[in-house]
């Protein structure tokens, strides 16, 4: 039986566990990320999302429990780099993660570290820049890019490692609406190419794209399921998370007695459903 891409088994993590007062960030979290899947992890600030993300590729090692990437224990030092290459991680603020002064060098950094031979390196780089729409900017200084371009560069610098999974840790939080949309579309395209996606966010409208959603609360998994199951879950309101606007409108209309289907989670679906409904009536 093939291993799941990422298997998290009753993972707990505490910061400062050697010190006098450790802070427990994760408590008994279990989840699976399959190859080519699209997973969203949501939760409010301080719910342990980022800690979980860093555990997925061994940047943090579990205090208790097990994280296995393609069957490799992240605690095993022999697999350290294999794990990190397989599960690529994009952080929130790209400005603070750039090491190089040109787009091309920045993007190539991961592959250089893996010792990819140069001809292969060049083709990977070309591919990654093309995928992220940065080919024309390869000589530019990253600090002169727009916020959206910086975020895409951060993704490109992961793609050169040819990962099987992309973890985006609140990468959209600092972006203006249009840039955010572009980034999510890029992520969708990468998902279509077969990359597994783990999107970490507290924006409910973004989780609608996922196949599977996990809600974290105080370091524990509170709800797991499809976006539809999660958004309609009665416990959601108690976790300090808002429904996306379209779902709010839909929920209100449903309460007033409008016969809307359950799968109207984003604006386009809601509009279509309402127009269908209107047509059926007249």
């Amino acid at each position, binding site marked *: 039986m093939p291993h799941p891409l990422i298997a998290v088994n009753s993972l707990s993590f505490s910061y400062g*566990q*050697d010190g006098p007062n450790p802070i427990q960030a994760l408590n008994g979290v279990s989840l699976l990320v399959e190859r080519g899947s699209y997973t969203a992890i949501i939760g409010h600030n301080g719910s342990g999302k980022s800690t979980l993300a860093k555990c997925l590729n061994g940047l943090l*090692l579990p*205090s208790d429990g097990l994280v296995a990437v393609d069957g490799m224990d992240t*605690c095993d*030092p022999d697999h*350290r780099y294999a794990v990190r290459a397989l599960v690529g991680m994009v952080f929130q603020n790209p400005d603070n993660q750039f090491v190089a002064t040109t787009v091309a060098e920045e993007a190539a950094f991961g592959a250089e570290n893996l010792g990819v031979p140069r001809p292969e390196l060049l083709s990977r780089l070309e591919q990654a820049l093309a995928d992220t729409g940065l080919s024309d900017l390869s000589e530019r200084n990253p600090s002169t890019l727009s916020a959206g371009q910086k975020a895409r560069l951060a993704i490109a610098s992961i793609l050169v490692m040819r990962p099987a999974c992309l973890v985006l840790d609140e990468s959209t939080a600092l972006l203006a609406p249009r840039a955010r949309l572009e980034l999510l579309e890029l992520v969708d395209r990468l998902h279509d190419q077969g990359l597994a996606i783990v999107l970490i966010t507290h924006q409910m409208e973004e989780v609608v794209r996922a196949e599977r959603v996990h809600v974290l609360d105080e370091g524990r998994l509170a709800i797991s399921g499809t976006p539809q199951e999660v958004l309609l879950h009665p416990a959601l309101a108690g976790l300090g998370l808002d429904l996306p606007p379209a779902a709010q409108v839909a929920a209100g209309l449903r309460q007033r007695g409008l016969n809307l289907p359950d799968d109207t989670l984003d604006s386009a679906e809601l509009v279509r459903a309402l127009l269908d409904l209107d047509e059926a009536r007249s």
Partner: protein
Amino acid sequence: MAPRDPDAGIRRTITAGLLLAITLLLTLTRIGMIPVPTPAGNATIAHIPAILGGIMEGPLVGLIVGLGFGFGSFMGATLPLFKDPLVAVAPRLLIGLVSAWVYIALRKANRRTLTIMIGVLLLLLLAFSYQVGMTTLWLGIVAAVATVGVCVGLLIWLGKEEPGIIALAIAAAAGSLTNTVLVLAMATIRGYFSAEMAWTVGLTHGIPEAIVSAVVVVAVVSAVRQIGSRQRGSSI
């Protein structure tokens, strides 16, 4: 027991790079050079990254950052004094080393050891001041008063603070004084300063610089490492 962070070496390299950047920023833009009307031209805070590097990342990083400070002050020098690499660069290499060594020696020390050490320091400095007083009376008196003041201050503080913080402060002050003493010694040996000038500069720069260094280093380290200060919380 969690395994040791295998990537500690990367952190050390990157931190060294950033401290070096701050040093160069402070020296090359002259922001870290505060003009004062003494023969040395300016007081400095640009040596603080070297001290921090030594204390937090070890002697090697302290050495590298100190080299950067020396280079920056050498190239930016307008006085013949600092155009001499033996004065501008060589002593600066030792700033981080001395801080690192002092810190390594003291960080495990308890309150009593520290008290004794401060006492010994007090006696040494007083003896020194007496020597100075033999040649230039007023300088000797000023030095003695300053020494007593600083040591009494340290002892009072020691009663209130954790030994770890005191060790930090002493290491930082030692690093800063290394800079003052060695630069002035070199300047005197190489004939730029007379002994009396050196003493004046040493007292007017060295002590304020040492105090500022200790304050800054304690503030930064306790913020970054979040290590204990007796003051467990806000005054609210």
